[in-house]
């Protein structure tokens, strides 16, 4: 059964096609990463799924309930964690959660129990008396997660939950999301930190200019377009790293991807390892003092950037229509 089902979804803002006919399914109990550049249509799609915006066309079902027809029913099954948690002044963490628990219909002892459960899960007990609008980003995200979990939702939609978090808070959040996934909740999560998404998610959705450009697991993405992508090597040299840049600029089949403190990261065209050996030989021949030369695995960021690059290229050089037979 699909927890989220989207068919031919469209959303326009005047002339801008924010979401342009996307369709996808997220099976119940899975964790799905939603990836795209800024302005690709992620937040718009997520807001529609969360019943906070309306599609111009298309159908969206959450747990088999149409979001347009019965938004109230959908909302009972949904937890929403926006990228920017709105906070209230003059309200402690406990009062904040207490208010939402009341708004979700919890009363008396039942409310207190539920509050304790979510505060245990998100480790907020030490913060109960703190002003909710004066928390660090990590604490705020935990509070936001606690609020989203109050009604024990079947589907959790998280828009950039890791944005602005320090590494420790990010690890904590990742751990919480993994725990929720183990509980069988369906999670749709968007993030820019693709390596983390790769670890957490069962599958990934890539969106670009309002269209889904890839849907699959992280391995399928890494292998996507891999043939043309080439092989990546980390090169370290003695002396000025600029000499590696200069060398790469004049060498065929080689592209400098990233300059580093003691060298850089290069891409060698194709997947021929013999060519890589020749490149190394050329480096040494041209006087570069190479101390390290090893192959790097293609990560999700590389795959994503390559995919965007190939899409831009395809848009810039569209295939001309076939000439009519004379």
């Amino acid at each position, binding site marked *: 059964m699909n927890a989220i089902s989207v068919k031919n979804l469209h959303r326009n803002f*005047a002339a801008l096609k924010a979401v342009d006919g996307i369709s996808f399914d997220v099976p119940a109990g899975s964790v799905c990463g939603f990836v795209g550049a800024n302005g690709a249509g992620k937040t718009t799609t997520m807001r529609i799924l969360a019943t906070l915006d309306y599609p111009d066309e298309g159908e969206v079902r959450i747990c088999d309930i149409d979001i347009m027809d*019965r*938004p109230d029913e959908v909302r009972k099954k949904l937890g929403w964690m926006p990228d920017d948690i709105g906070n209230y002044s*003059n309200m402690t963490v406990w009062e904040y959660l207490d208010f939402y628990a009341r708004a979700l219909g919890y009363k*008396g002892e039942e409310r207190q129990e539920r509050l304790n459960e979510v505060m245990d899960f998100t480790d907020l007990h030490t913060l109960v008396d703190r002003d909710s609008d004066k928390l660090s980003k990590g604490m705020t995200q935990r509070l936001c997660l606690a609020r989203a979990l109050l009604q024990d939702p079947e589907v959790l939609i998280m828009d950039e939950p890791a944005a602005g978090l320090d590494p420790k808070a990010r690890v904590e959040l990742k751990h919480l999301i993994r725990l929720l996934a183990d509980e069988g909740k369906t999670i749709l999560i968007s993030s820019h930190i693709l390596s983390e998404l790769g670890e957490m998610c069962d599958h990934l959705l890539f969106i670009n200019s309002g269209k889904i450009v890839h849907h699959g697991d992280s391995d399928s993405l890494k292998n996507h377009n891999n043939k043309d992508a080439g092989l990546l090597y980390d090169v370290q040299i003695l002396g000025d790293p600029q000499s590696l840049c200069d060398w790469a600029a004049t060498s065929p089949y080689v592209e400098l991807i990233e300059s580093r403190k003691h060298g850089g990261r290069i891409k060698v065209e194709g997947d021929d390892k013999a060519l890589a050996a020749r490149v190394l030989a050329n480096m040494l021949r041209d006087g570069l003092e190479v101390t390290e030369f090893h192959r790097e695995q293609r990560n999700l960021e590389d795959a994503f950037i390559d995919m965007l690059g190939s899409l831009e290229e395809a848009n810039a050089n569209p295939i001309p229509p076939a000439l009519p037979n004379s």
Partner: protein
Amino acid sequence: MNLTNDFSDRLSPIVVKELRQDLRGKGFLILFITLQIILSLILLLTATLSSSSQDTGTHISQLIFFCFSFCLLIVQPLRGCNGISSELKAKTLDMLQLTRMSAWSIVFGKWISLVAQSLLIASAILPYLIMRYFFGNMQILPELTLLMTILVFSGFFSAITVGLSATPSILLRGIIPLIGSMFVFISIAGAFSNSYSFNNIIEQLTFTDSDFTAVFIAIIAGSLYTSWLMLEIATSIIAPLAENRDTIKRVIGFIAAVIVSISLMFANTSPEAIIMGTMAVITPLFVSALIRTHQLVPSICKPFVKRGRIGQLAGRLLYPGWATGTFYCTIIGLLLLPVMITICSLSNSSYGFQPEDLSAFIAYFGILIFPAAITQLFFKKYKNLFTVYLLIFCIHWGFMILLGIMAATTSDDVLLLFCWLPVGALALSFDNTVSDSSQLVISCLVTGTYLIILWFKSIPAWKHIREVESVALKQIANSAD
């Protein structure tokens, strides 16, 4: 569980939240403490400086009511300007909407928390009124009635600002309440600054004059009705598409218009008063019907279409959206006209229904239609139809003032020159230089033109309504299978 813990569970969550926040907030604390300090000083100073005067008690009442009115009629309503907009700004409204609270309970909770704070302020001035009693010359019941009346008006003004606070436009949320506050300040300064006007108010509030009593009841009823309508408008703005707020609004509005017309029939009043009273009731109703964006989902149509042709016809009148709003306004206009003519001829009034009354009624109908027609012609892509409508509405009325000045200073021909505007047609209906039949023809032509434009622009919406209705019918058939 004890009673005190239980009590907060009986209240709306939004009221609990608002009271928690606001009673700790600087705004309320400053207002409350300042009022206490000022009232204490007034009592002390008046008691020491003018204790020999016979009017001391009245002066103290004037000052207490001035301060009280200032807090309740100006400061408290202005605090409502942030009601919904603060939630929109802080991006918390989304999260509120995902709870079990309906859009109405959010808006109503915001308003009721303001009213509760006003009640708290009112209860805090009671000790000063008790002390003032010892200065003599106090009429307890009228002064308590005045206190209650101020509370009702405070609720009314707060409903207006809370209602406007749901609109994204700063013009509506800020400027209209500020201008309104200036008028209120002038009014309360006039009412409480001298003993004559204050004594006059207190005397009227003894309700010995039956006409005043009728007007007073009508004003209170009108305030309650408009308060509800303003809160409903805010609710419509933030409610999800599947929440139908318009049907009940339109049905109650129509009933209110009929009740007002019939009530006025029993008063010895002129047709102008009947027309004005009825139009006062339907004006906010028409505005709310014509400013709603046309978006319809099958779940709204289902209760109507399953009742067959009659249900479908009722739906066309009562579905949300400006297209059905146009149909509703047209039908209400066509129904009210013969109703009012009949009422005017049946009433025990010594006046008859004059042709210029008919012209004025039709022209006023055009005034309500005109901003909607212009909005659909030139500003269709604006999401915020309410702001555009009200801006055009205000500019249109402003133009009427200009026309009046021009007609007075130059020539009455200027009215003919601008009679293509509904305000021009309305001004012309009060002008004696044009024959009654010409006035009527002009009013009909002008209003008819803008109505036709609106109908013409609504054609695609009707096509969409039919499509949504057929989807709703299919869904009903599928669920029956």
